[in-house]
């Protein structure tokens, strides 16, 4: 079993570039050897592509990748994915799952403090229908639930605002810091717009943390700053943080700092690959490759996402946090395929 005490002994955002390189050099060797030993498909990939291959996130849709025995799988996470498509399956054992929760707590504490805050989840508890199968949504909510206390769900099973519950929460914790968590688009669509329509302004304090991507909001021309302003105006909360994360690397999320930059913590790293060669060391925009030290039950420590991003700097963010900071532009532009990948095939 790998011993993570050296990683968890570190402050989440206090490791400079040199130290991080050293730490990651050793850890990626260790993790690579671990997964090669326990996951035969991964060993085959390494034998061909070299010892630190980035796994495309989509691969988890097509292949079962596991580094633990099936009876040690405590929880299987599935990606929400586009409807009608295959879902990714991520296998978690108890250790990986616990490690993810612990890392998430460390990362988020750097932004909201160590105290557990009253938590308003901007979602419905109906997300947890099947306890064994965790969707990305369920995983996010579960992870953040551990950070708060007195959890209250803001939406009912029909995704309508439970106004009585929300107002009771606001009243009970008036004047105290609280934590709000949810998915970006759902917060906008089901919470913000509904509050605005009902002309309800909340008088909350504390933090709003949200993630899940901007695609749907970009489509309706809502920017990150629009979002922040709108939510602050409607809820009273002035600290609104976006995060970048994925079900394939739960826990080691990249939080947006006060400067609007996404940050790698000690638990994760980020690289940009040339989108046309998938070679590392690209400057400017490129394909985001994320590294997480956390997973031992599945070989997802180095992932190639399908998102486009850009590194903004390392160790130099004015917010004071060390590590790489970056920006996400959204999905890599889709292909205009000649002929096409349609279900119709002919010729």
């Amino acid at each position, binding site marked *: 079993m790998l011993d993570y005490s050296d990683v968890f002994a570190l402050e989440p955002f206090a490791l400079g570039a040199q130290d991080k390189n050293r730490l990651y050099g050793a850890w990626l060797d260790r993790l690579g050897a671990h997964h090669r030993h326990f996951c035969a*498909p991964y060993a*085959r*990939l390494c*034998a*061909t*592509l070299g010892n630190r*291959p980035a*796994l*495309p996130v*989509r*691969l988890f849709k*097509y*292949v079962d990748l596991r580094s633990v025995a099936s009876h040690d799988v405590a929880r299987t996470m599935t990606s929400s994915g586009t409807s009608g498509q295959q879902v990714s399956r991520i296998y978690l054992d108890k250790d990986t799952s616990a490690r993810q929760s612990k890392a998430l707590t460390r990362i988020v504490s750097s932004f909201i403090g160590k105290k557990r805050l009253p938590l308003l989840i901007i979602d419905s508890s109906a997300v947890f229908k099947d306890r064994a199968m965790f969707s990305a949504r369920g995983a996010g909510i579960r992870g953040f639930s551990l950070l708060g206390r007195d959890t209250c769900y803001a939406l009912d099973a029909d995704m309508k605002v439970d106004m009585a519950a929300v107002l009771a929460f606001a009243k009970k914790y008036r004047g105290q810091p609280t934590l709000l968590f949810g998915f970006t688009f759902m917060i906008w669509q089901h919470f913000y717009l509904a509050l605005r329509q009902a002309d309800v302004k909340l008088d909350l304090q504390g933090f709003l943390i949200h993630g899940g991507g901007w695609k749907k909001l970009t489509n309706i021309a809502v920017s990150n700053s629009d979002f922040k302003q709108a939510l602050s105006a409607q809820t009273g909360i002035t600290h609104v943080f976006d995060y970048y994360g994925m079900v394939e690397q739960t826990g080691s999320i990249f939080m947006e700092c006060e400067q609007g930059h996404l940050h790698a913590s000690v638990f994760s790293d980020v690289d940009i690959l040339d*989108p*046309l*060669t*998938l070679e590392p060391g690209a400057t400017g925009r490129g*394909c985001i490759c994320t590294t997480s030290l956390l997973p031992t039950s599945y070989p997802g420590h180095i992932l*190639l996402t*399908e998102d*486009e991003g850009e590194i903004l700097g390392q160790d130099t963010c004015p917010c004071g946090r060390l590590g790489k900071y970056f920006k996400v532009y959204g999905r*890599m*532009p*889709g*292909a*205009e*395929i*000649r*002929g*096409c*990948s*349609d*279900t*119709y*095939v*002919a*010729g």
Partner: protein
Amino acid sequence: MSSVGFQGDNLADVQVLAGTLDIDNSPLAPYADCTLAFLADVSQRLLKGQTARQFPDIAAFAYWCRAAHLKELKGRFLASEYASGRLGRGLALHIAPANIPVNFAFSFVFAALAGNANIVRVPSRDFAQIELICAAVAESLKQYSEMARRLAFVRYPATAPATAEFSAHADARLLWGGDATIARIGALATPPRCVDIHFADRYSVALLDGAAITTARERDLQKLAQGFYNDTYLMDQNACSSPHMLFWLNASKSAQQRFWDAVRTEAAGLYRLQPQMVMDKYVQVCSDIIAEVGTVKVGFDSLLTVVDVSELPRDLCGLRGIGGYFYQATLTHLNQLAPLISDRYQSLLYYGLDPRFLQQWVIDHRLRGIDRIVELGKALDIDIIWDGYDLVTELSRIVDAR
């Protein structure tokens, strides 16, 4: 003169891009002068101006329809048996392939040459080529009034009831598509004498003589690479006649290397690689490695990835690449190929081998597949003989007199 006018609720979703749905379904003789004149006029319109230069597929179509070529085809047809005693079948319905922009036009032309009136459902995707060809056709129709009621280019959703409506009056149907599409549309009721031609999902392979590659002059090799590029990259390997699998006879590592180097050079100069395509190929290489499809180390190269297949599966048809992703295997004897060939196989592209010999080999082995043996570089050259059919013959009837 007989006719059939389509109207009513079932056609609510149908958009007519050229022609009319008030159709004159009386047959013409194959290669009727009015048909040839009309098609040659369409060809001319497409060839002049910028259109053809911008779209090589439109250029190929227009070039195919030029007067001289049609005349040559007519001459060849007239020399065949029963040529003078033929008429078209009446009304042909075309469900064109969704993925190749100009095949609807070829499908139309083959049936028109056979003497049929035509309803052509074009792909739903708004390929620029469709608009340009329909515009040229509409212009020509103004001048060739005898053709005005003999065609309708239409667009409507795949699930619309129009296909059933058209099928009920069709004397011939040309159905292009995946197996599911063909099964669905094939099941619709047609008049009892309707002739269906199904262009189902097919699989194509190439067969190369390694020795011929080794001895090829640099210039010929480059031409070969160019041809291979057109067969594959040009349509992102999505055409059924694009080879996914390459078999080598008399193979050597150096011959294979020489061929792929030439292909890579060609692709580097011409192919517009897109990030999503690179990702698709990277996912495929990972899947193939995990499934142990390849034997030797596969190097991922986003422009050209070639997987040496370790053990030939009984059914190869799952081995398909896109945008410059190929499989290859070495044969010690051609006969090793025979048991792999199922009725899925369409084109056998060859290099350095004798097509007559290969044709005889298919016949001698009584293979259920391969109905097209053409030189590498000509995979996409669609013609009247396609998928094992002589389309003008199939789409016309014999008026027997003795």
